[in-house]
């Protein structure tokens, strides 16, 4: 009798990664859900034994799903698999009943150890691992993939952004000793003239400060742009235990400190996943006390299209929010695509 397992993640790329990481000789039937709502329905109808749950999902996120499981008294072993690795996040899901927390991207050996640890599946000593597993075959028929693995590039980028954002949020959380709220990063390909549209987290009339920092490596080049909502300065100063008057010099210091952390962590997160290295230029303050449009106005349009990844960071219960925009040059796309495709192999 195959063991029923449920993989809940809004990214089909991530669900496929998860499926590929399962032990090859495990007799499983894999069910999939794209959000918490679908997951609950499947839990009630098919009663899978184990669920791998992502935290960052639309409609109903991981935390809400765990709540629903408790409320409706559903019996299932929940293993959280997420890019959001903040200590508080791990603590919360454990309190809500998850038996384990696995950090994305998932490694086969780690998953096998976790399954072994909870008595879900014992790894056979004489296992011969083969590439074509039963689970993958099921996946193929369930998700209708015509050629060998045809992955949507958008999804690959989405997942890379998710994991990188999780790392940045974790560092920010450690620095500010708070919980960082992470909406799903938005990946887009837009005209440079439409750059304003890529920034969804900041309102037109907010006063903002912006820091930008260039990076380059492995054929990929671009700029990281941090847009910081100015109403946040007081709260940030408090969280960073800054004592004293918050004058202009201090504001720039705080801005630079946050920029260093977020940009550094995101770039590192991306670089590690793609197994490359980035050189970072010196950060530059683009503007202070300006509206978002003014911040972006002066860029020379040397290329027409740019790949953008937008990540919004908010601190729970505080008036702190900032938007990190990663902009990649048009001629980086080819190299980027190639590196993402290695990740999928």
């Amino acid at each position, binding site marked *: 009798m195959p063991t029923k397992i449920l993989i809940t993640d809004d990214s089909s790329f991530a669900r496929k990664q998860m499926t590929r990481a399962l032990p090859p000789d495990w007799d499983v039937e894999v069910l999939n859900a794209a959000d918490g709502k679908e997951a609950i329905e499947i839990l009630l109808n098919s009663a899978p034994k184990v669920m791998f749950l992502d935290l960052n999902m639309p409609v109903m996120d991981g935390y809400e799903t765990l709540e629903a499981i408790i409320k409706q008294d559903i019996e299932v072993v929940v293993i959280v698999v997420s890019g959001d690795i903040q200590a508080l996040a791990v603590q919360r899901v454990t309190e809500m009943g998850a038996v384990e927390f696995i950090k994305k991207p998932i490694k086969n050996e780690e998953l096998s150890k976790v399954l072994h640890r909870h008595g879900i599946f014992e790894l056979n000593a004489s296992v011969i691992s083969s590439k074509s597993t039963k689970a993958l075959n099921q996946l193929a028929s369930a998700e209708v993939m015509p050629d060998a693995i045809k992955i949507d590039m958008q999804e690959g980028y989405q997942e890379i952004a998710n994991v990188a954002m999780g790392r940045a949020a974790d560092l920010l959380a*450690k620095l500010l000793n708070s919980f960082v709220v992470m909406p799903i990063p938005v990946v887009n390909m837009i005209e440079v003239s439409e750059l304003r549209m890529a920034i969804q987290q900041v309102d037109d009339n907010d006063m903002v400060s912006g820091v930008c920092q260039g990076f380059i490596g492995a054929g990929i080049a671009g700029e990281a742009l941090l847009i910081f909502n100015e109403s946040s300065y007081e709260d940030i100063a408090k969280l960073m235990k800054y004592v004293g008057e918050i004058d202009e*010099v201090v504001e720039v210091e705080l801005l630079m400190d946050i920029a*260093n952390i977020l940009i*550094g*962590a995101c770039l590192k997160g991306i670089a590690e996943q793609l197994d490359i290295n980035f050189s*970072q230029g*010196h950060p530059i303050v683009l503007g202070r006390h300006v509206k978002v449009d003014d911040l972006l106005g002066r860029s020379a349009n040397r290329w027409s299209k740019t790949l953008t990844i937008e990540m919004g960071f908010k601190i729970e219960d505080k008036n702190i929010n900032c938007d990190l925009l990663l902009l990649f040059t048009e001629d980086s796309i080819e190299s980027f695509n190639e590196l993402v495709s290695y990740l999928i192999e």
Partner: protein
Amino acid sequence: MSDDLTELDRLMSMMRSIDLGLIVVDENFTVKVWNDFMTNHSGVRGEHLIGNNLFEKFNDLPKEWLSNKTKSVFMLNNKAFTTWEQRPYLFKFKSYRPITGAADFMYQNVTFLPLSSADGTVDHLGIIIYDVTDVALGKIMLNEANLALEKLK
């Protein structure tokens, strides 16, 4: 085998004479590495500095600011940067052109790098000092010119 050694030697020669400040300190700010740029601009030789505390030899360095700034580098294994616009300089050096130049001191950009030991923990800090006097002067003069133009309007 001997070829590898020569490449390392060559690299070390370049590091010593490169026109950037290269410093390595541990968590207590004990100096471990000090290159020629630092020796020449500060007037303090490496031999007198290595093994001693940085702040003892340079008591006008902003100790508290530096400790705060580098705390997150050690803790989070993350690079940190500071530019001349935040702080004109970290070490007060004479400008490279003390006679014909327009600056009283060297404007500096600084990068702080986490350096880890074999077990992965960050136990040392790399400090790279860039001379950006020309860039800084250019921007300052541009701003002054713009202000003057505004007044004329």
